[in-house]
């Protein structure tokens, strides 16, 4: 058996011993995870700086805080979530106990990605642990420093058999996917999502796929453009645009395009100064391949701001493109970089049509002071999630499930939804084993019973 096979078998054996069943055990593990995060916050920030040029502030506020909040919320709610849930009974089942019983699935695989390498790997772990599973974690090799950190610290705080970290590239991931799991949660791109689902199908393993897409951002004429552009700039350019729920492109009327450009520029200068390269708060592209890819998207476009990059540091300036042709390359793939194309549309209807001709995105944004516009945009489109008059933040509400639809994914998690995703909720009916007289009516022979129609 391969080394990876052994690790997975060990996790399964540990699960089968029943260690994770008591809530107390799960809570202890979550508390240990919390301690790990607080005690290693500097190391986490250091890894993020090395991988993505992040700093201690955004390491905390754009990654760590989500996980700490999740742990807090889950520890508090776990006894309630894990309890048997009585359900409404029918007249014939009044004497019975009818309830839904939550159980762990078994061994869960979490495959992380590189853009928020801490959050997307560890936040799902919280729900999986809370639901009583063993969890095999495969961080992304592209965010190398974080992968190494997780492999080092997690075993120092959590049960080593139940929560192993497996590192490696494509061949290790392929190896892991041959093993049988009871749920797989994958964050990444659509192409790999299909491969994961295929692999899962062989074992009938349920999956949660957090994928991506081109998240449209419609800016209405009737809108406070200062506020809108500030918020859009914040969500778009954080982590140098490498955020799955970032607004990917703007749709607006041509009459406000210039104002949008000016206000985005103003906010960008406020955030990152005249030269973002000098800002401690502005990120870098994860690797050369992605750097080349994003730079390529700017070719042939009208650059209203930015448009430059430095391959040596993988820096790409915050860039705004105007009058973008929907057929051009920048509108054909998820940008995942600090390039904001603006596509002009003449009406809300045209914007809606534009959006609906494309794959369902992970997020959709609409800025307007007019409730009717917001309502119409939401009812006539589909996406994983929506925020109106802001961007990204629907992600941070733990009572809202976080997930995609269509090409942007399937399944969801965060908060209670995580617990549900990683549990089997078993329908139970328990009846007293009394004499059967009252049940006589159901038994054959039935001839006597069929007297009415």
């Amino acid at each position, binding site marked *: 058996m391969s080394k990876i096979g052994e690790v997975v078998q060990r996790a399964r054996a540990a699960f*089968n011993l029943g260690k994770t069943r008591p809530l107390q055990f799960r809570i202890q593990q979550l508390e240990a995870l919390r301690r790990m995060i607080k005690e290693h916050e500097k190391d986490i920030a250091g890894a993020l700086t090395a991988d993505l040029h992040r700093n201690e502030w955004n390491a905390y*506020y754009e990654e760590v*805080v989500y996980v700490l*909040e999740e742990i*807090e919320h889950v520890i508090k709610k776990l006894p309630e979530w894990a309890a048997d849930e009585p*359900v*409404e*009974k029918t007249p014939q*089942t009044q004497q019975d*106990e009818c309830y839904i*019983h939550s*159980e762990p699935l078994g061994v869960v695989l979490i495959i992380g*990605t590189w853009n928020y390498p801490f959050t997307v790997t560890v936040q799902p772990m919280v729900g999986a642990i809370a639901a009583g599973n063993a969890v095999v974690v495969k961080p992304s090799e592209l965010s190398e420093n974080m992968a190494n950190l997780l492999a080092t610290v997690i075993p120092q705080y959590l049960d080593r058999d139940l929560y192993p970290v497996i590192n490696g590239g494509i061949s290790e991931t392929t190896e892991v996917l041959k093993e049988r799991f009871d749920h797989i949660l994958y964050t990444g*791109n*659509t192409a790999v999502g299909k491969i994961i*689902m295929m692999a899962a*199908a*062989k074992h*009938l393993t349920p999956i949660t796929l957090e*994928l*991506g*897409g*081109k998240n449209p951002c419609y800016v209405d004429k009737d809108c*406070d453009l200062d*506020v809108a552009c*500030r*918020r859009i700039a*914040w969500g778009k350019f954080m982590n140098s645009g490498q955020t799955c729920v970032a607004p990917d492109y703007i749709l607006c009327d041509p009459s406000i395009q210039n104002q949008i450009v000016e206000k985005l520029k103003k906010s960008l200068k406020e955030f*990152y100064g005249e030269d973002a390269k000098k*800002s401690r708060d502005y990120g870098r592209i994860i690797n050369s391949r992605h750097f080349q890819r994003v730079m390529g998207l700017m070719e042939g476009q009208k650059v209203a701001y930015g448009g430059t990059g430095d391959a040596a540091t993988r820096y790409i300036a915050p860039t705004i493109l105007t009058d973008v042709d929907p057929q051009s390359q920048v*509108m*054909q*793939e998820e940008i*995942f970089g600090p390039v904001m194309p603006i596509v002009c549309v003449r009406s809300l209807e045209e914007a809606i049509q534009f959006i*609906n001709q494309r*794959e369902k995105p992970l997020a959709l944004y609409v800025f307007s*002071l007019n409730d009717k516009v917001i309502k119409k945009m939401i009812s006539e489109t*589909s996406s994983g*999630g*929506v925020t*109106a*008059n802001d961007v*990204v*933040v*629907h992600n941070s*509400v733990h009572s*809202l*499930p976080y997930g995609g639809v*269509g090409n942007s994914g*399937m399944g969801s998690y965060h908060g209670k939804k995580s617990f549900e995703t990683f549990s*089997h*909720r*078993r*329908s*139970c009916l*328990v009846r007293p084993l009394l*004499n*059967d007289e009252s049940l006589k009516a159901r038994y054959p*022979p039935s001839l006597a019973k*069929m007297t009415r129609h």
Partner: protein
Amino acid sequence: MSGKEGKGAAKDPGSEPTLGMDPFADTLRRLREAFSAGRTRPAEFREAQLRGLGRFLQEHKQLLQEALAQDLHKSAFESEVSEISITQSEINLALRNLRAWMKDEKVPKNLATQLDSAFIRKEPFGLVLVIAPWNYPVNLTLVPLVGALAAGNCVVLKPSEFSRSTEKVLAEVLPRYLDQSCFAVVPGGPQETGQLLEHKFDYIFFTGSPRVGRIVMSAAAKHLTPVTLELGGKNPCYVDDDCDPQTVANRLAWFRYFNTGQTCVAPDYVLCSPDTQERLLPALQSAITRFYGEDPRSSPDLGRIISDKHFQRLRGLLGCGRVAIGGQSDESERYIAPTVLVDVEEMEPVMQEEIFGPILPIVNVRSLDEAIDFINRREKPLALYAFSNNKQVVNQILDRTSSGSFGGNEGFIYLTLPSLPLGGVGNSGMGRYHGKFSFDTFSHHRACLLSHPGLEKLNEIRYPPYTNSREQLVSWALGSHSCTLL
């Protein structure tokens, strides 16, 4: 999350089979266009479809009963109880609750979003494919349909070709009751199903075997189509020494031989001690005689096996262990007597595959622990049953095993509660449905946050540049209970 494919581009039709060779392209395009035009969104439309379905059931009840009798020798009683009534109840439940189910579901907010409106919007996926089996061909085709229609989807129904008479009624009569721009029935066999599965659907609901479940999920993977798979397994039934054998036998026999054992949640085999076996056998014989008479073959309440292939398969299983009750069969009628087998070995064929017939093997175990180990060595079943007067025993079985659903001192009566969903786990499936769970299964739950354009001051803290004072905030926040400042 990035890739070289044109994912942002207009939806990719490239994966569809070429026109001309493809009998379904037109139908599917028509349904997609109707969906895009928004036809299925209004509650009134969905209610009209559900009412149409209800009228179909009412007006063709007799036709359906005859079809079920032809396909499975199903008695009028069984047809009523497990096919027609149950479907009608689901329709009525959906009609009564549709508007409430469709409403946005408000959710609690965290501190930072108190001023915003946060809710979950239920939306249809789009084009749904329902692939149904032959054993409850009305129930298992139409109950999923109720959920898919209620949720506002356009639906393609693929009934089973094995329940031929029922398939005919569904293909020829049902469409007249529904809006055919949003609904289609595709009859046919594995070839047609394969061709259908090449196309992109927005949701696939499949009921059938684990083997075919894998094929469906692999096909769905090509289009990233989410699925619900209602599969099967060997549903264990533990009978404790502390029980009244006749009561247990009555319940066991009824749930085992209902629909001639062709029920995905039927008790598949019994685990009990040799002593209990001795008490159960005469009780089972007594129950069988009471239900089906001295000559079960002439009972109108006992069905027949669906096909020659399954009949041969089941007849083969009669050779396992030793026949304690029944064992008779007649090929010309595809009749198999209600049978109990004893002295069955774990490796024999009857213990290696889901039986799906009127044969009940009894396997001896010497303790509760041994029974639990036996169960846990095998794939997670769709259902699991435990009979005991002792509550502790029932609870132990529940706590130390896993299965789709669980019945304590009862068979699959839990199916009559719309508040208890039906679904598997592991090899027995993924996803669940019935009642509101159907509506939720066929809906995308879209997370929505309506933020306030004003009060920008509150957001100040999240914007760069991140100065030293902010870093102090970080240390403070880390030291205390954290809060998000987003």
